[in-house]
């Protein structure tokens, strides 16, 4: 799968309160949540973001709360992929489980500025900066993660496992 979009760039420790503030956590509809995505650190993000756009950040993206509302609202906002040097553990799991592609790649983060055009090949982990003409290679997904993604996320994977258990 090839993803294409422009970069929205952030620094270290973008926390879940920044991605979706707690005052909206009484909602569960991803489309409603998307209207408030990143609003406390990047006012106007929800209006600016275009389908396919990529969030690029440095270390520990998604730290803080376990709220799955965070990757859900990023995905619903139209973001195709998040690239960072590292992710907080719970955010990493949540993103995989709900089918938001995320990649770890130090070089791509260092070699990318806000507004750059990016092309990402998910299976190979190849990231091309179309603006600068450079190419980077992300850490490939562990096999188990690929299996989850191929199954269509954790719910579908678990549904199949449960079906197999039944006599």
């Amino acid at each position, binding site marked *: 799968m090839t993803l294409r979009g422009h970069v929205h760039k952030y620094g270290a420790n973008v926390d879940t*309160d920044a991605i979706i503030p707690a*005052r909206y956590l*009484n909602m569960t509809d991803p489309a409603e949540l998307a209207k408030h995505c990143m609003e406390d650190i990047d006012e106007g993000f929800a209006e600016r973001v275009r389908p396919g756009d990529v969030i690029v950040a440095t270390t520990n993206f998604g*730290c803080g709360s376990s709220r799955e*509302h965070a990757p859900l609202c990023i995905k619903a906002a139209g973001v195709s992929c998040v690239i960072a040097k590292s992710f907080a553990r719970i955010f990493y799991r949540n993103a995989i489980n709900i089918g938001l592609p995320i990649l770890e790649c130090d070089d791509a983060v260092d070699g990318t500025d806000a507004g750059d055009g990016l092309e990402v090949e998910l299976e190979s982990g190849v990231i091309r900066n179309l603006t600068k003409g450079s190419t980077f290679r992300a850490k490939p997904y562990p096999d188990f993660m690929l299996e989850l993604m191929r199954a269509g996320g954790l719910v579908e994977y678990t549904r199949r*496992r449960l079906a197999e258990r039944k006599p």
Partner: protein
Amino acid sequence: MGMTLAEKILAAHCGRESVRPGELISARVDFVMANDVTAPLAIQEFRKLGVDRLFDPRRVAFIPSHFIPNKDIQSAQNAKFMREFALEQGAVYYEQGRAGVDHVLLPDDGWVLPGDVVVGADSHTCTYGALGCFATGMGSTDIACAMATGDIWMRVPATIKVVYNGRPARWVGGKDIILHTIGDIGVDGALYCALEFHGEALRHIGMEGRFTISNMAIEAGGKAGLMAPDETTLAYVRERAKRDWRVYEPDPGAEYREAREYDVSNLEPMVALPSSPANAVPLSKAPRVNIDQVFIGSCTNGRLADLRLAAEVIRDRKVHENVRCIVVPASHEVYLQALREGLLETFAEAGCAVSTTTCGPCLGGYMGILAEGERCVSTSNRNFPGRMGHVRSEVYLANPAVAAASAVAGRLAGPEEVVK
């Protein structure tokens, strides 16, 4: 080869002799929890799995905690959706008003126990690690699947060993020890790792202070924060346990990714300045900023020992006229006991707003929301930008004695500045 505490517990839960860091396992879970923020999503996902029963209703808890008593119609709808599912399934459920902060209720009522693997749809699930169990936070979809299957996939984490030597001084407790640690290793210092806490200092801290230390493992990026059970742990567990438990200890030859040692005997009360728990400084080096609000409560410091400490500082004094001080006992039991001991009267007489249990203020969800430019001293665990309200408000994290002293002084202050 020796195993760490986390490795021992995880091996026992996937039917293996041993596990090593980095391995993917499917672990049996002993307890699963979700709250009013995360349960609605989890129940929606559970319904998609094609099963109609929880794997074991007495091992799954739904706790309304964040927006209770319901702050608005949408929160009430969510809580109702969760309650109906919990009652339909016969799951562990606490009614609002007589509930509590999830991470105080579950250990206090003996639902989570030493040797368990516990997963919760809340990042501070790691609190229970103080009991000697492997407890970790996850999202709603993970929890939905665990609710159905009774197991969960997990990558075995490497372990960082943290040893606390010495005896903490007066006014210094679990909160100060863990803030000092996070200040040292940073908010991603334990990313993808388990923290294993040791040392004689822990012997001088009761269970409540230990829960505070394990609670904030996540603020260093940790997957879990474990302590091997000792007599203090077992005395706490014996009178509460709802089922059998098992004590695990790390092997003497266990392999750690790294080891850190701290002498806590010279440690001062610590304050985490805005806007990161890692901005921890000794109180003597913290600026004496004027404040608008104090919050004493949360899964970090809303327990009985915390309220006793705060009351000791605030007794026979008045909250400063420029400050609102909000005190929230962390469970209905804590509330009742604080009432019996006269602590709630002490707070009310001093001019504090004393509330029924809720997580609301900690995450700016409801009650005690900060306006633009306002400053709060909070006993909670996070001070990210906008955490308690307006994105240009500030949160200073501190222990309950510092919070109470600040309420009296009207500025960031230590207990020795008000208790003469």
